[in-house]
């Protein structure tokens, strides 16, 4: 499928080099998104684990909230 770029209001067909760059960008964005999703999951997991450990030490939910703020 032809890929278009609009330069100053004029539509032109993307060159082979530009299409190759686009494919590279897509691969990078996909990898970045995956890394970002993994980081979010890890953060949530770490948060739950820390909460559990604090409770195991005898802290109440209110006390845990208090030390977080």
């Amino acid at each position, binding site marked *: 499928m032809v*890929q*278009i770029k609009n330069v100053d209001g004029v539509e032109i067909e993307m060159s082979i080099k530009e299409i190759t*760059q686009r494919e590279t960008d897509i691969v990078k964005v996909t990898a970045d998104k995956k890394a970002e999703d993994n980081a979010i999951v890890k953060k949530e997991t770490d948060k739950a684990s820390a909460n559990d450990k604090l409770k195991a030490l005898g802290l109440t939910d209110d006390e845990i909230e208090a030390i977080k703020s």
Partner: protein
Amino acid sequence: MSEIKVDAIGPRVDSGTLTIGAAGDTVNIAGTAGTGFPTPTTGIAASAITTGTMATARLGSGTASSSTFLRGDQTYAEAGGGAVNLITTITVSGTSTSSIEFTGLDNSYKMYMIDFTNFKQTRAGSTGASMYLRIITSGGTQTGSNYDHAGLRIIGSAGNGTWGNTGQTAVPLTPSNVKIEEGFNARFFIADPSQTTNRKYCWYNFAAPDPSGALMTGVAVWSYQANDAFTGIHYYTSGDNFTAGSVAKLYGVT
């Protein structure tokens, strides 16, 4: 002063020429001008001028041009204050446009602005940061790992946050949780793109909904890790295309 009283004066032959006075004479006409009045020197009511365009020199002193305006004291003068001049408009059409470029940035203006109006992408349900920008220099669009960015986002229902990174291959225009297909509105500022003395620090603000539909706004700064003069800005979407009807405009600010 002698006086002649007649009902009409005309040329000697029909459709001929009637001359009153001679070059250097002053001819005064005291009465009220009627329709089809010839060319006297005084005594014409402004309301009698019903056709043609008044010469600018008859309206005021000074130089009349496309950049001057007529003041109340009947003097042509430059417009005061600054101005925002529209340079280029890009309206996306079709379904295959994945990038847009504004070129021609130079030292004509110390400040350029780029407005995105209801910019959308074709991918439904998208929540990733998939709109980016890169600079264009004399060497073309720069794709190396030389872009830094930092931003602050404010979300109505889900709290605030920051995003940023260094040494990236492009500048992501949004944090990761933006519902891009709903429309992205933004204003970008590029200050002094031609200077090569130091790095350029550019900024923008935006408005868009987050995936839940909550209102989101944000402001971000970005910079390229070199002093190259910017000759243009390249925007692209990764993985899909811009939606037809998306509009971007480049302005020069004086």
